[in-house]
């Protein structure tokens, strides 16, 4: 595949069902760049799932062509084609009569990998999706929770290391808490593996959070706008897109800024390790000129907020103060941080990295500052656009 | 010879084909075979022995006997199995229910002729009566089980709603449970009918006549034609009984179920 060529190209892809006047998918032209997550989002019945299922030819197109890595795959053997793509669906579809390891090994077995390679790959993938291989390798799907099963589904799709993954509402069947966790973890994984992903969802917030590029689809899978989330939010193409984005566009844009993108206040709250004695802690707090200390454990994980008054009453740091409730992953968005802040006792969300270690805090001031910055940048952009329209120099 | 297994889930077109095949295909097939047999026999020169066995009055007599025995046995079965089934699914019988169902399941293994012969030899020395009794006993277990399972399947929520609305226990039984269980009951009736018609043939062994008589005489006198006529006759009656049962099942089913 030559440099700059899209990983997947849909060329006038159409699906017409007999007996129906309007095509379900109407001559879609779409380029999906390598290594990016492209979201197909739109209202119910717009044809997004149909389009997705034509990429791996679960549904055969009526006309048009599909290109994978520059190769025209519209008419190649479908089974062989599908083994080159990972496929994750909402109901997951794990094989209940096989163990987790056997499930994950499905495509490698079809590709005739040798058993050692398969076994290593299974362990590697279980690790990647956050499941301890020792514990889960020989379990059966019915013995696992919904969230765990979803992870296995993702692992299974990645087993043969396909360059492309097709995902159809993969996190849809879980509760909001689990869903958020799965989304964050998936984004972490994507950072490492950088696969080309086509992702279908009906949830615009999920689209904004997960997508490098979003295709907003109308009936017949017609593309209303295909662009990065930032551009769509700051510049909706038409009324349909605006309506689809819904109210609270500004807040939605908070979904785009990740905590790692802004300057997280690291030095503001003083931290102490768990084995510090109380007097040393008191001294540190007085010197830092702050209301509270943050207690970290041996792995630098935040445990408790401790105020001056708590230090006067307790001899042991580990029981002083209040437990830290609001922690947030650093890959999470400002929107997530805002929600955590509302829950916490002192309006501060503690930011942790992938292993749970403390990296900083976010509070309401941080978020407000971020919003102000966005507004300023938007106004400047509008002004620049108006002046360039006035005199196209 | 019972329809014991689950119904295969079939969609619209399949159902239509099935219905067509059943309502029209089956009787056509039976008529075709019987006609063929008839034509063949007419064309043959029957020797004296065959002539004594195969003749119109005998055929008529056999058919009538078979139908009579079957109807009596079916009646007997229903009179025993249905009330018993209702009784055993009431709350006060709940503890006994699993045992009864287990016995009913185990009873599937009793061979029909074994039952027949025992009743005949040890009890009722009349061929026809022993057959009726034997067939009834044989059919009671499957119909009993069908009735019980059917009533148990009636959605507990529906019953609760009915009681909650103030219906008496008897009203619930009569106005809610029974109507909902009708499909299962109908299957049970059809099962009983088919079972009894099919096994009534065995009456021949104990002198009860029916088409089985053609078969036994035919074998005894080495006349294959008689055996063939008897077999076709018995089979035709059984298949038609099942056909009628099927139609009844479909049309007597309350709408909405």
């Amino acid at each position, binding site marked *: 595949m030559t440099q700059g060529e899209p990983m997947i190209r849909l060329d006038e892809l159409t699906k017409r069902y007999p007996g129906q006047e309007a095509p379900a998918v109407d001559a879609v032209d779409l380029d999906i760049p390598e290594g990016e997550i492209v979201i197909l989002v739109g209202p119910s019945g717009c044809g997004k799932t149909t389009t997705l299922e034509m990429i791996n030819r679960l549904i055969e197109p009526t006309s048009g062509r599909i290109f994978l890595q520059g190769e025209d795959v519209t008419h190649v053997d479908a089974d062989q084609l599908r083994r080159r793509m990972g496929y994750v669906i909402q109901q997951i*579809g794990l094989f209940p*009569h096989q163990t987790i390891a056997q499930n994950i090994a499905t*495509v490698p077995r079809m590709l005739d990998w040798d058993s050692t390679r398969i076994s290593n790959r299974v362990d590697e993938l279980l690790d990647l999706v956050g499941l301890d291989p020792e514990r889960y390798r020989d379990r059966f799907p019915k*013995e696992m929770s919904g969230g765990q099963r979803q992870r296995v589904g993702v692992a299974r799709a990645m087993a043969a290391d396909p360059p492309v993954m097709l995902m159809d509402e993969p996190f849809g069947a879980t509760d909001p808490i689990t869903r958020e966790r799965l989304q964050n973890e998936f984004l972490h994984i994507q950072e490492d593996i950088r696969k080309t992903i086509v992702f279908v969802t009906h949830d615009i917030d999920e689209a904004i959070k997960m997508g490098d590029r979003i295709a907003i689809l109308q009936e017949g899978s017609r593309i209303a706008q295909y662009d990065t989330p930032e551009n769509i939010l700051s510049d909706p193409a038409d009324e349909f897109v605006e309506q689809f984005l819904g109210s609270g566009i500004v807040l939605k844009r908070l979904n785009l800024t990740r905590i790692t993108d802004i300057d997280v206040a690291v030095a503001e709250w003083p931290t102490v390790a768990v084995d510090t004695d109380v007097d040393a802690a008191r001294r540190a707090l007085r010197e830092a000129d702050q209301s509270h200390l943050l207690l970290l454990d041996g792995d630098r994980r935040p445990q408790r907020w401790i105020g001056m008054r708590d230090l006067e009453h307790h001899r042991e740091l580990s029981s002083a103060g209040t437990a830290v409730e609001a922690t947030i992953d650093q890959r999470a968005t400002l929107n997530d941080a805002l929600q955590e802040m509302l829950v916490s006792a002192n309006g501060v969300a503690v930011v942790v990295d992938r292993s749970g270690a403390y990296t900083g805090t976010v509070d309401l001031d941080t978020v407000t500052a971020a919003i102000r910055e966005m507004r300023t940048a938007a106004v400047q952009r509008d002004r620049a656009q108006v002046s360039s329209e006035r005199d196209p120099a | 010879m019972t329809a014991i297994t689950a119904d295969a889930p079939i969609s619209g077109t399949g159902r239509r*084909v099935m219905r067509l095949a059943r309502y029209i295909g089956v009787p056509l097939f039976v008529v075709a075979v019987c006609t063929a047999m008839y034509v063949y026999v007419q064309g043959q020169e029957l020797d004296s022995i065959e002539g004594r066995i195969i003749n119109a009055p005998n055929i008529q007599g056999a058919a009538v006997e078979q139908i009579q025995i079957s109807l009596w046995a079916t009646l007997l079965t229903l009179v025993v199995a249905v009330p018993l089934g209702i009784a055993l699914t009431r709350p006060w019988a709940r503890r006994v229910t699993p045992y009864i169902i287990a016995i009913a399941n*185990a009873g599937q*293994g009793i*061979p029909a002729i074994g039952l027949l012969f025992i009743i005949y030899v040890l009890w009722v020395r009349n061929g026809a009566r022993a057959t009726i009794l034997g067939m009834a006993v044989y059919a009671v277990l499957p119909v009993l089980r069908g009735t019980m399972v059917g009533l148990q399947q009636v959605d507990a929520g529906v019953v609760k709603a009915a009681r909650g609305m103030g219906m008496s226990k008897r009203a619930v039984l009569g106005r809610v449970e029974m109507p909902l269980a009708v499909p299962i009951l109908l299957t049970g009736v059809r099962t009983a009918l088919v079972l009894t018609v099919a096994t009534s043939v065995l009456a021949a062994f104990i002198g009860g006549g029916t088409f089985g008589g053609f078969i036994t005489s035919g074998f005894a006198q080495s006349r294959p034609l008689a055996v063939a006529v*008897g077999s076709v006759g*018995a089979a035709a009656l059984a298949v038609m009984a099942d056909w009628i049962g099927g139609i009844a099942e479909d049309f007597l089913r309350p709408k909405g179920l």
Partner: protein
Amino acid sequence: MSVADYLARRWDTVLELTIEHLIAVALAIGIATVLGVLLAVLVYRSDRSVALSLVSINVLFTVPALAFFSILVILVGLGWTSAITVLAIYALLPIVRNTITGLREVDPAIVRAATGMGMSRWARLFRVELPLAYPVIMSGIRVSTVLIVGIATIGAYVAGPGLGAELFGGLAALGTARAPAQITVGTGAVVLVALLLDAVLALITRVTTPRGLR
């Protein structure tokens, strides 16, 4: 004569007949399973084929056993072949019906996932659909087995194998002391064979069903 006396005198014959019975049933079930599953696999995807197959087999199923045995004997002759053919035909219906139901009731999401992963139709059938339908199929086999244990007794009338011989023998000896005992022993043995086979199949099903499906 009491049952005990009868058994004491003729236990070897009874045993021999019991074994014959078991073998005949086993053969018939084996044949019916192979043919039945094969048929089901060929037709389960098409509604029309399913409907036609089921109606046809049902007609065969409804024919009284004595009639069926007799017809086959006229065509093929007395003995084991006719008997086992008839038994296999009777055993077909529950097996075919259950296999079709089992295959059709596999969760569509699982089938979709398997197709989406690139499994060919046959791979899907053998690695996913059949294993998942296995419990239902075994249930059909169990029903068939118990069924034909009973039907096999009638086969003895046309020189077929099994304990039916005791029943007919007892009937023929009507009036003698041993008749009631013989018939009772015959019937009892058949019931025991049915219960035994059912229990064995239940055990096999339990042991061979993957833990994930129980």
